[in-house]
Each structure stands twice: as C-alpha cells, then as structure tokens.
C-alpha cells in the first residue's frame, strides 16, 4: 500500500470532514434536509473509503467487526427503546411528548433526536458490515487489472 500517494493524502484530509458532515446531517436533520438514513450512509462511506485506500487491517483496528455488528443491533434497540420508555411513562408507544410532560414540544425534539440517532447507528453499522463482508474475501484481481 505504498503507492497511490495522492489518494492517501486526500483521503486522510477528507475522512475527518466526512465524519463531521455526517454528524451535521444527523443532528441538523430537524432544520435542513437529511436525517438518520443519509447521515448513516455518509458516516459509513468515510470508514469504507479509509478501508479501500489504507487496507482492511487498518480500518479493522479503528472499528473492529464485532463492534460493527453490535452497532447494527444497537440502533434498532435505541429506536425501539425510545418507544418503550414512552410507554413506561404512561403514553403511547413512540409518543415522544412523554419525555418532558410539561412541554410536549420539547419532548418531540428529544424523541426525534433519539430515533434519528437509532436509524443512523443501524444504517452505519449495516453499510460497514456489508463492506467488511465483501472486502474480507480474497479478491480475484489485482489493481492493474481495472
């Protein structure tokens, strides 16, 4: 992996920006286009591009596969768990007004933030897990064949 110097420098610069942008899309989804799905994909792409350029071993050191598989399930749990918390507080499933009973609008904000975070975590996890699954198999061709 000593070749592709330009690629490696640019990816190093871009990965942090991509993660930052993903977080912006995630948490600014209330005000601008975007939300969990898009943010999850952008976040996953940051890790995938790092894996493509620097090799699977390096990205596994940052984000080991077992953690990715936990993330896949964690997102759904966060989403469903929000609904369960609402139920425990005596409201309907996924009625976020329960989170701050005296001011239901704020509760909606918190609830939307929580479920979008759940969506984002699951999408990130699934995309990275699929990429790992593909990349972990030995490739049939070398760089030059493209």
């Amino acid at each position, binding site marked *: 992996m000593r070749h592709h110097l330009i690629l490696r420098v640019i990816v190093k610069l871009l990965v942090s920006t991509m993660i930052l942008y993903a977080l912006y899309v995630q948490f600014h*989804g209330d005000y601008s286009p975007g939300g969990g799905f898009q943010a999850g994909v952008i976040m996953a792409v940051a890790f995938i591009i790092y894996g493509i350029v620097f090799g699977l071993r390096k990205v596994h050191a940052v984000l080991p596969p077992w953690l990715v598989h936990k993330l896949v*399930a964690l997102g759904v749990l966060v989403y469903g768990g929000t609904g369960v918390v609402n139920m425990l507080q005596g409201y309907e499933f996924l009625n976020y007004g329960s989170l701050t009973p005296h001011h239901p609008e704020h509760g909606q*904000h918190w609830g939307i933030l929580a*479920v979008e975070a759940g969506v984002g975590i699951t999408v990130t996890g699934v995309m990275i897990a699929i*990429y790992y699954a593909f990349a972990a198999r030995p*490739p049939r061709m070398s760089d030059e064949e493209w």
Partner: protein
Amino acid sequence: MLVATAIAIAKMDRLFAVVMLSGVFSLLAALLFVNMDAVDVAFTEAAVGAGISTVLMLGTIALTSRVEKPSTQSPLIPLAACIVTGAALIYGTLDMPNFGDPNAPVHTHVGPEYLENSQHEIGVPNVVTAILASYRGYDTLGETAVVFTAGIGVLLLISGLRRRRDPDEEEDT
C-alpha cells in the same frame, strides 16, 4: 440525459464503466428531484444511489468478473416485457393530476394537516423530519428493522460466522 445514460448502460459490456454510469444515473435522478423541490429525496438518492451502491457494486465486481457474459437468449421476450410494462406505466400517468395541482388527492388528505399542525405540535422546522420521525414513527421503525434484517441477511450469506470471527486469518489463506 437520463435516457442517454440508460442506453449507454445497456450497451456497455465492461462492468466497471456500467457501475460508474449507474452512479451518474443516480446523480442525474437526484438533480431531477431537486428540480421538483424534493430535497430530502434527492439527498438520499445522491448518498445511497450514487455513493454507497457504487462502492458495493465495485466490491462485487472485485469478487466476480469485470466483463459481462454474452447473452445466449433472444432479446425479444425481455424487450416485449419492457415495452408492455412501460406502456402500462405511461397509461397510468395519464390519469394522474398535474404536478403541483392543489386539488390533487395528495394535497387534500392529511398533507395540509401535517403542514399546519407540525409547527406547533412538533416544533421542528423541517416538516419531512417531523412526519418521518414523529407522525410516521412506526413506519420508520419498520424501515430501520428492514435495514437491520437486510444487513443480517447479507452477513449470514457472505461472511459466515467463522469468517466473521477472524477476517485477517482468512485473508492469508
């Protein structure tokens, strides 16, 4: 331009170029969505269609082959199926209301209610997010579960438990 890209995709047999062109196709579709003021959809199309699926297709090509196999069947039956389906779809659009028609069923049912009430019920400026995450929270939970299931399915099919535990060892063999 969408049509030209689609024809180019159908004509190519080098799969690398096909994957790149389908990324271009997604970006053009995203532009179309922006033109129709559906920014959220366009964003998703650009991120998912042009971004991640291109990468996944490249991964698939790396595992399989990079040139399309010559087709052995006659192209007439698929062509007929395409023409019939396309004609049915175009016939269906004839009855649809014009784009932006205020009397269209979409704009007279629950749409206005969401637009009017979401600002003081939810207090989130982006109505799309309010509908997705709050009014239609069950649906989005279902979508997340679908993504989850799809991910689990791909993992079971491709990686397998043994490979998942120890990817580095697998690489060496």
